[in-house]
């Protein structure tokens, strides 16, 4: 379950309280006009306005919108034939176009367009059959052309939506599904990377990333707290990974999130917003947004104003700090890209008969080939195996875990509902503890199924099964049955032997027996435990219970 905690939520209410306490602690006895404890925040995971505190002060409504840059997973860059690869030697993946040498022209990569169309369709967007490229100008050393080719006027996809779910209680048992509108998806170039050498006061520029294809996904400000934003981004990440349109690994910068945050009172216009950048993990995204909401509320309640500024999240300090913008308030001087004609896409109806198929992108064709999206996969898991919805989330949250689960289910007689416990409690927590991916698991789905079959056929107890599993993690290549034999973990099949052991336990524990006979049945569990101990977990507790009861009632 730990996996889900990282993403989804406890509901914002609790979070606000905690943040408030910390804020109060830091700033001491604040001179603010309102007592901190009575501040109302109109945000919870259900989306309703939380009434203000006892004082009746107007609550605050936080508003969060996201702009997400997803690096397209492609072999070559958006407009040039140089390779896309993370952590290559500096400036080794740079064409003359990427370095903006005179006389070079952009040539659009078909794959990047298809990835954007796929993503647009998966996010329920309308795909524009004609979209346009524009230049966005700014001067920076890692942008050698002095402009970025993007889609400002008519982007490739517009008006979509993304549904995401989050838990609204700490037990992770109640989930709520929400929707955020997608304003648009645009194709654009990535910039290079700058390494700032402060001591020598210079910037080192690596253009390997310059010109890599990006999809910028612009979300409407439909979210109200960090947990919602985090859950939405996690769902988007899963969708991108399912489509293969982006690998979306945040740590490698393949998914970069900027958050626009503001607060206002209900019924009033939106407040001035700040943009929070430099967020490189989903966990930090939630933290950064919640910190920023809290900061704005405190600032306003202390009579201050919010500046329309860019702030960076400092993950070490856990707060946002004003960032000196690349150029302060910008004028990007957008203009149509003169070197690229409009991008025309087709569907089954508009498909021209006599056109080279390599030059045609057919929206309907892509639509038909979309894989099952995470939401559909979860639904199928719940329906097919009768598992809980929250378990389906956990299964999809780890790459390969759902497949592992299904593979085990196929190979065992154990019911899926029981298998899921072994997958989530035993397998997953072991993997987490050792920072392993599902693929790296020392126990294959085949071996786990083998073990669960021994348990299901009542050849071993579940205590013994755990012991075998502990042995299997060592990855010594033994089969579960070999381990069972080696460590003599088979259930005692000999009824007589078991009866003798039970009798011995009863004889040796007169006090307990008296207690049971006096009407305290709970003490029976102690005797069962003692039998288990004597048999080293090799007895069937149900059977032991029956035997003991029989003997004690006799």
């Amino acid at each position: 379950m730990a996996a889900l905690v990282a993403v989804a939520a406890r509901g914002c209410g609790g979070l606000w309280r905690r943040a408030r306490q910390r804020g109060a602690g830091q700033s001491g006895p604040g001179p603010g006009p309102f007592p901190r404890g009575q501040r109302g925040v109109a945000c919870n995971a259900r989306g309703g306005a939380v009434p203000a505190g006892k004082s009746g002060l107007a609550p605050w409504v936080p508003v969060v919108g996201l702009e997400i840059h997803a690096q397209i997973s492609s072999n070559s860059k958006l407009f040039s034939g140089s390779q896309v690869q993370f952590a290559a030697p500096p400036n080794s993946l740079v064409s003359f176009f990427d370095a903006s040498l005179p006389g070079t022209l952009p040539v659009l990569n078909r794959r990047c367009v298809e990835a954007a169309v796929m993503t647009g369709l998966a996010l329920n967007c309308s795909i524009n059959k004609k979209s346009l490229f524009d230049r966005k100008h700014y001067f920076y050393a890692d942008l050698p052309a002095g402009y970025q080719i993007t889609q400002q006027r008519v982007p490739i996809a517009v008006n979509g939506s993304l549904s995401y779910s989050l838990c609204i209680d700490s037990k992770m048992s109640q989930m709520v599904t929400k929707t955020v509108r997608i304003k648009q998806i645009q194709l654009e170039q990535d910039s290079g990377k700058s390494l700032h050498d402060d001591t020598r006061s210079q910037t080192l520029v690596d253009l390997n990333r310059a010109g890599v294809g990006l999809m910028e996904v612009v979300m409407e400000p439909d979210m109200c707290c960090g947990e919602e934003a985090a859950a939405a981004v996690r769902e988007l990440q899963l969708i991108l990974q399912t489509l293969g349109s982006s690998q979306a690994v945040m740590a490698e910068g393949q998914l970069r999130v900027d958050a626009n945050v503001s607060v206002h009172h209900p019924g009033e216009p939106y407040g001035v917003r700040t943009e929070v950048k430099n967020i490189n993990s989903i966990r930090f995204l939630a933290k950064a947004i919640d910190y920023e909401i809290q900061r704005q509320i405190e600032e306003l309640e202390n009579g201050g104003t919010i500046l329309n500024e860019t702030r960076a999240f400092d993950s070490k300090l856990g707060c946002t700090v004003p960032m000196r913008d690349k150029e302060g308030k910008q004028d990007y001087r957008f203009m149509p890209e003169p070197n690229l004609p409009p991008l025309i896409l087709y569907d089954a109806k508009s498909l021209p008969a006599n056109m080279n198929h390599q030059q045609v992108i057919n929206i309907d064709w892509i639509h038909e080939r979309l894989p099952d999206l995470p939401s559909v996969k979860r639904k199928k898991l719940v329906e097919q195996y009768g598992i809980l919805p929250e378990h389906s989330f956990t299964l999809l949250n780890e790459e390969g875990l759902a497949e592992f689960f299904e593979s085990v289910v196929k190979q065992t007689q154990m019911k899926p509902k029981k298998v899921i416990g072994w997958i989530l409690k035993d397998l997953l927590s072991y993997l987490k503890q050792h920072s392993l991916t599902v693929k790296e698991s020392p126990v294959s789905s085949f071996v786990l199924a083998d073990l669960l079959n021994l348990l299901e056929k009542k050849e071993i107890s579940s205590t013994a099964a755990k012991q075998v599993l502990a042995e299997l993690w060592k990855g010594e290549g033994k089969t579960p049955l070999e381990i069972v034999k080696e460590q003599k973990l088979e259930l005692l099949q000999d009824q007589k032997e078991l009866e003798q052991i039970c009798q011995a336990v009863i004889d040796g524990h007169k006090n307990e027996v008296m207690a049971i006979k006096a009407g305290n049945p709970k003490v029976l569990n102690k005797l069962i435990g003692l039998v288990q101990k004597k048999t080293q977990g090799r007895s069937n507790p149900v059977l032991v219970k029956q035997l003991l009861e029989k003997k004690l009632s006799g």
Partner: protein
Amino acid sequence: MRALLLGAWLRAGRGLPRAPGSGRRHREHRGHSGHSEHRPQAPLRQKVSVEVLQHLEHLALVDFRDAEGVERLQKAIQFADQLHEVNTDGVEPMDSVLEDRCLYLREDDVTEGNCTKELLENAREKVEEYFVAPPGNIPLPKLEEQETFLQGSQ
């Protein structure tokens, strides 16, 4: 149409930096004006203010800080202003002469790159395989210093 942008932008006074508490700076830079031929069709010519200069320097990360630089900028604006002499009423803007052509789509193959050496040959400064640029995020010289300079250069 594109060349109009700079002139139009300057006239509209868009994006001028409003340095807080810098009221005394809101005066126009004197000098460098009125030495080109008169063009009645062109809209009123605007002198380049210190704020505009600073903003441009900021945007472009280049240095205009001499009389020659200011004059060059002024002339560039005047040159661009000539475009206003063309009557474009009722003419739909054109993005490019290619706008009714097909956009060629390339297959996703790696065909370029691996030319670090050639690329870096053009660089004035490099460290290992990196280009070296001046620090980008360091503030440009303070406005006061520039003013002193500009006044001194008149």
